[in-house]
């Protein structure tokens, strides 16, 4: 579990720090960051990632478009995606699920809630992860 490499994507520096700290408190040491979807794409292509945690509203490329890009890219199509966003409407959640994110957290989140969602996602994709 601790070997999973996380990519945290959010245009808010404070949010990235909070998510990264929460991940490290759970024992995940390999965590990288990106400030928007475009930056995330560059990092995925150069460094890869085993799990993507992304915000929705971001400049350059938002989280929804990032998720669509990931799913359309053969190299990353099975990478788990967890969306963490302030958007909590039913339509937003459905739109994200249509883009094939694995799970959805509405801000503000708790460390326990984050852990639960990560565990749920990892469990759901387990057969596909070597």
């Amino acid at each position: 579990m601790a070997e999973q490499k996380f990519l945290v994507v959010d245009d808010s520096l404070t949010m990235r720090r909070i998510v990264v700290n929460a991940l490290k408190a759970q024992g995940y040491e390999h965590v990288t960051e990106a400030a928007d979807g475009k930056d995330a794409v560059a990092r995925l292509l150069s460094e890869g990632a085993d799990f993507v945690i992304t915000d929705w509203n971001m400049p350059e490329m938002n989280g929804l478009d990032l998720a669509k890009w990931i799913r359309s890219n053969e190299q990353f199509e099975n990478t788990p995606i967890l969306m963490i966003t302030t958007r909590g409407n039913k339509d937003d959640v459905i739109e994200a699920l249509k883009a094939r994110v694995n799970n959805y957290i509405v801000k503000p989140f708790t460390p326990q809630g984050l852990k639960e969602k990560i565990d749920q996602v990892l469990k759901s994709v387990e057969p596909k992860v070597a």
Partner: protein
Amino acid sequence: MNNESLDKSLSDCVRTSNRQPVRPNIADDHEGIIKDFIDHVRGIVPLLEHVKDSISESSNRIPKASLQLSKVTEATESATVEILNVLEAMTARISSSEEELQAISQFVDQAGPGVGKEDAQRSIVSVQHVLAETKDNSMNIAVALQVQDITSQQIAGVSHTIESIRLQLADALHRFDNPGDEDSTTPGAVGIPPKVMSVATHFDGDADFSKKPDRQDLADEIVKQWAGKNLAP
């Protein structure tokens, strides 16, 4: 439209109407009514000028208000980062202290029976609890700092609204000075606002800092239903 142009319009109106074949003097018959109407319009002109000046003054204040809002976001982000720095340093110190305490605890456990051993063990456990609690509180503080991200999105929403209003006011002002101009998108013209404002909206204007579980519960229910629907044969 000024008084000179109003007078000219009245004269043209009278002249044109008097040329009509059916009732050549229709304008003469109603000249009084038309004059009253023109006088009424003349009275409105100063009011419209006052409205225009008010719009212009309000519009000029908007950029400063928008700047103040962005400064608020910058300041809160800066303060939040400082707090996170302190919390991270605290967490690192606590982890280090926990390790040292664990080493001391093992040493005490391995030591032979002696005066104060039990007291020492109790103190160690007590301190370990305090450290764990402090660590949890640090994490809770960090989580509460999510308010900065959420409020910055709310502020961005307000700024966006203010900017939209400014552009509409600028459009109205343009029409005051150019009443016949329906197209206010002359490229490169100073002060001419675009009809369609293409401002990047990378914020959620409806962001809400609420710790109530209902929004997450709704998302969880939708995810669960979606998974069930997609897994169903």
